[in-house]
């Protein structure tokens, strides 16, 4: 697993629940280190072990924890860079949803060895979307539910996003867009703020 993903999990747990919780999880994981490096590669089992221990420590279901992780990635100030990169995907929420097809490629363009599961957006009816996440990392779909919910807020769109289920190939998410310009949303300037 790419260190960026492990690092994201670490930042989420630390920023949300505090250093003590994180330190305890890492002690239990007994990996011989207490922090992930974002530019190193780790065994996949390490990531799942840390997530499992985190869910236990926080008495949350793994699915809820992953969804909170997705929300954090878009909405927390410490990871503003990531929100900006996602906002480059489109000028409005619908365009953003369509840009998810390119997300793995976009990620690879920035960090060549960063692998994300394939995402496919379908629009069976106007305003009704299904996102299929290739079932490479179990639970990735839940992260995407959190990401999409938070991005809808970010764009100011009113949408209902739900985890439909998983089969052997895909995890499926449904997105019902009710109103594209429901609220003002957060601003997005192409130019990065200085500093």
């Amino acid at each position, binding site marked *: 697993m790419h260190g960026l993903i492990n*690092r994201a999990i670490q930042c989420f747990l630390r920023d949300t629940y505090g250093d003590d919780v994180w330190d305890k999880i890492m002690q239990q994981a007994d990996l011989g280190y207490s922090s992930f490096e974002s*530019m190193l590669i780790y065994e996949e089992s390490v990531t799942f072990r840390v997530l499992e221990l985190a869910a236990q420590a926080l008495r949350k279901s793994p699915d809820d924890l992953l969804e909170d992780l997705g929300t954090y990635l878009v909405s927390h100030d410490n990871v503003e860079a990531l929100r900006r*990169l996602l906002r*480059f995907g489109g000028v409005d929420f619908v365009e953003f949803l369509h840009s998810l097809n390119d997300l793995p490629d976009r990620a690879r*363009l*920035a960090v060549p060895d960063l692998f994300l599961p394939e995402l496919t957006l379908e629009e069976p009816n106007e305003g009704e979307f299904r996102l299929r996440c290739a079932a490479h990392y179990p639970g990735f779909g839940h992260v995407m539910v959190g990401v999409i919910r938070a991005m809808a807020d970010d764009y100011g769109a009113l949408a209902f996003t739900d985890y439909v289920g998983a089969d052997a190939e895909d995890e499926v998410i449904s997105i019902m867009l009710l109103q594209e310009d429901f609220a003002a949303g957060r601003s997005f300037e*192409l*130019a*990065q703020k200085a500093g």
Partner: protein
Amino acid sequence: MLDQTLSAGGLDVLCPMHVAIDAQGRIKHVGPTVSKLAQGHSMIGDRFCNAFDLIRPSGVRDVADLLSYSGRSLQLRMRDRHQTRLKGVVVPQGDGALINMSFGFSLVDAVGHYALTSADFAATDLTIEMLYLVEAKSAAMDESRALNSRLQGAKIAAEEQAFTDTLTGLKNRRALDHVMGRLIAMRELFSCMHVDLDYFKSINDTLGHAAGDHVLQVVAQVLVSETRAQDTIARVGGDEFVILVHGMDDPETLNAIARRIIDKLEDPIPFEGHFCRISGSAGTSCSSSYAAPEADTILHHADVALYASKNAGRGRHTLFSDALLRLDTTQPTGDRGAAHPEADFTRF
């Protein structure tokens, strides 16, 4: 045949950064993004060369001249306070010309200066992807830089550790050799004071290693407090220490330093309800005594002087002199560190 006429509106969509000029070089129409660059000023009717500075090709006098570069790459600059550099290409249009432009490498600055948005670029333009890449790459670079600096910190810490005696935090033998080698190579004056604890072994034997370790830590504090920051203090054996007193060879001063250290070492050290009593013997050699100082010789001579102190009854300091070499120094201190009859631990 294909209908080649294109409405002005269509051109604005395809090339939002175009400028149409007439045969006299006056601006007839600008695309929506160019008019945004003008920041409120209407460019219509202005001379093209007053709004834009043509850097390459240079020496263009009129529209016909400009059109001789048709299809080739132009370099331009906005005549405004940002002096934004632009790339361009010119083609004939009617009796005038059409110049289409883009930002090239000035893009990141221009987006900030003119508050440009996605809507200011043609849908096929790669600008948004380029901005995405710039940000993604710099975020990735920040992460790499953070990793590098953490690795650098870990490397320094590891090196530091390898030069440090982990019990006392003093330098170790390796570090001492390193510092001595450097001082000698730089021909710097220094004195080498070898300090050996007296009665230490009996503390280990009677009160155990925890007491011994505690005493060694207190001794390290004494040595640090009685020397200057620039001096080097190393623990070179179980209860042996070497102090390199930098820039100093005055016998009186060295005697005084040693005296202060020994006096302090004789203060009882409390440990778990006991007082541990130790003392110290010291011997010093000075680099200035040698025409060509060598680390081994200097250390050996400090050792000879130390043994002389032990022989003379401990708790004292001796400066090395050649006379000491003529005395037999090998015999009486075989029991270095052995229990001394006077060693006592008072319960308090």
